[in-house]
């Protein structure tokens, strides 16, 4: 600690503390939390989530996110996190699978439906299916089989028929209400 010297002119003492310059960086909003990224602006969101924030629910799917395991919601729309350089994300809202449940631990209806229908194989691709299904409900509030057929996520464990049932379970409730 360097003591601040008393100045000769008492009225407006000039501080010797230089405030840190506002750092160039990208303002990010992820699951409602705010972050400032000052590293490589080209870093894909996926590696920022996994390596920097340690939010590992969003999985590595492939170099281009081919199997949908790395889907996140960007301003409500499902996109592959590995295709999104951080530079593009300033001022946008990112929601990952960790952000779907309420702060009180209450599950999103689709999360509960996935549990109820046992729509889980190894579970690695499950976060991607959840994000894709939420995006489907945004586009089609009452999705039918043809709409569900449009989901492009891949799963070798074969959870597709159970995912379909989970989506229909929520769609059925949406229709009733």
């Amino acid at each position, binding site marked *: 600690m360097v003591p601040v010297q008393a100045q000769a002119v008492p009225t407006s003492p000039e501080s010797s503390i230089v405030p840190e310059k506002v750092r160039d960086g990208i303002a990010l909003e992820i699951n409602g939390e705010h972050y400032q990224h000052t590293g*490589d602006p080209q*870093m*894909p969101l996926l*590696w920022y989530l*996994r*390596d*920097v924030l*340690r*939010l*590992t*629910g*969003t*999985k*590595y*799917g*492939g*170099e*281009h996110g*081919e*199997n949908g*395991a790395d889907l996140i919601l960007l301003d409500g729309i499902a996109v592959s996190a590995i295709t999104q350089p951080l530079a593009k994300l300033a001022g946008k809202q990112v929601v*990952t*699978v*960790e952000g*779907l*449940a309420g702060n009180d631990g209450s*599950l999103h209806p689709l*999360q509960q439906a*996935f*549990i*109820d229908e*046992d729509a*889980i*194989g*190894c*579970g*690695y*691709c*499950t*976060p991607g299916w*959840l994000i894709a299904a939420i995006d489907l409900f945004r586009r089609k509030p009452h999705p039918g*089989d043809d709409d*569900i*057929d*449009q*989901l*492009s*996520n*891949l*799963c*070798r*464990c*074969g*959870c*597709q*028929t*159970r*995912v*379909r*049932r989970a989506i229909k379970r929520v769609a059925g409730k949406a229709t009733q209400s």
Partner: protein
Amino acid sequence: MSNDRNTSDTGCHDHIRLSRRRFLQVLAGTAGALVVGIRMADATDVPLPLALLGDHFYNLGAYVRIDADGSVLIGARDPDTGTGVATSLPRIIADELDADWKRVSVVPLGLGVTDNNGQPSWTYGRQVGGSGGSTPAAWNDLRQVGALARWLLLQAAARRLGVPASKLRCNAGTVIAPDGRRLTYGNLAEDASKIALPTNAPPLKTAADYRLIGQPVGDVDARAIVTGLTRYAIDEHYGDALVAVLAHCPWPDGTLAHIDATDTLAVKGVVKVVRLRPEPGQPLGSTAIAPVVAVLAEDTWSALQGRQKLKLEWKPGASGSENSNALEQHAGDLLAGKTDPTTRVRNDGDVDAARKKAARRLDATYFQPWLAHATAEPMNCLVRLEKDHASLVVPTQAPQKAWAVVQRLTGLSPAQIDIRVPRVGGGYGRRLDHDYVAEAVMLAKAVDKPVRLLWTRAQDFGHDYYRAGSVHQLSAIIDRKRQLLGWNQRMASASALAHRNVPDNRLWTSELEADQLPATLVPNYRSDWYALDSAIPRGPMRGMPHISNAFAVESFIDEIAHSMKEDPLFTHLRMLGEPRELPLSAGGTLDTGRLINVLKLVADRIDWKNWLHTVNGLGIACWHVDGAYVAHAIEVAMQGQKLIIQRVVCAVDVGRVINPLGLQGQVAGATLDALSTALNLAITFKDGQIQQHNYKDYPLASMAQLPNDVEVITVSNDAHPPAGASFLAMPTAAPALANAVFRASAVRVRRLPLMKELLRLL
């Protein structure tokens, strides 16, 4: 208190012998906990890890731990790759214990290993996931763990209440006296941990008393999975670990001709570039792994950028001249020629003599492509090496095999190697080989820092231990009464066991089964295997060798039915004959009654009696695997060139069912996996290089291509112990599909993948 365990030298026991090598043992835990587990004989000199008794829950073993507050912690010993064993195995213990499932937490076990004079002792016995053996093995020993814990709790309650134990009963974590007095397990745990063990293992429950076994329950990890909190190995970190991404030589036997890493090292965050030159014979036995250049960086993004800037030239080895087309051509030539088979797998009666008596003969040849594992979670490994310790987090199906790789590379003694196995993102046999563990350990040694290894998707496709393609030439001899008089099967393939120190006369065992249908049902039956050689790496694959053989055999039986203008269900039933048990060469029996039952179940459900009259095509197939029985019936429609799978029905008989919900999921999932594979998937290689690099080239079926539902019928067959179900539903899906396609389109598909061949023939 001569009955206390502390005075066990006065004739009391501290363990119960279950078998020659296995013991039940009780350990008093801290804070009044009761801990019961299974121990192997060769581990008797070694105390169990202290962690079991403390607060380190993840190292519990096949153990029950009952805490004073009544919560029950159960260890799941086998890696769960999505097969549900982390749920079903603890359920087996919990039922025998009469635990309240709502108070049970399940913890995945790490590898249990102790040092026995430099040799490893496996604390928990068998630890293999995804091979269909977890449940049968658990049925044999894990029930005893629960039964002993319950017995001890009952003794403690008997003393406390002054009532004989035989008059007490247990229900959902409570001991209840005849007069209605109740004591919770939590209340009794500390006393129970001091009771001397009985001479013999306490009796197991009778089936009538099962409360959890046979009842549906969701996956224990479900909530953590849907909230994104489950940590797979790929999600684990050490703060100071370097991220390693690799450039593999395209040829497993190739060499690095030139390297320029200047641009790579200029990337911010890149720390080091390391060459690995694994020698043949190291570190995976005789299985070669490709030479590697690794880029190590502070984070994944830097490492990936660095790898992109590597300038590498690779030189092919002998495999550089291999082509999958040429290999298949060679197989065809072999089967067409007069060469003796590599192995005559089975020879009942006299096929040549039967041929002379034939009223009718039918021949057909079927082709299967090479396949990749395509696990969702790519290969990865986290490792920290210290002078006298190694800690790893490994996505493996066989932690004991991973241990062997680490031990060979580090020279550490058995107990100095700590392997943790979280939930695994798909295995399918890929994670029975541990090339990625070897790479991570070698890199950690080279940089003297912890390493977090990550394969990219393209590497996963390009450097797999593939399932080899195969050619099946089948010949049926039929007598005047339309009975199958003879069956001659000739198969050519490159064995998954070749180059793995397996004797030549056992190489066929990964390729076909001596007891597969219709063996034992046909008086003159011959099965020959012809070896192909290839340097393209091969290894275990989910469902092999059943899947490829069931496709050939069950398609062929459909062709036989068609040639005789018969209903294929009728042809099947005539072949199976009366319900009876036929002895199998590998032990066990073929129960034709159980096979007939699953066939009839799917036929009824899909309304098979209309099979000739529907515009859609119906197909059927059945198979048996290690004492379990499966049948599929599938309905398809052709709309021009578009194939629509309208209905899929699958019936399985696995003996006693532990978790019906888990079984249904497993059966539906395996059906979809098999359909997806049969429809579209093939690995090819040209000049020794794999041609498929991502999901676009290896297109797993999308939601739209798959049926909307799989109707699963599980036969409740409590007279038989539980058999494995992990891949049971795979073998019959593809032939039922191909048979249905034939009825709908008149096109017989004898070559997979089906869509490509169907479009060629339409």
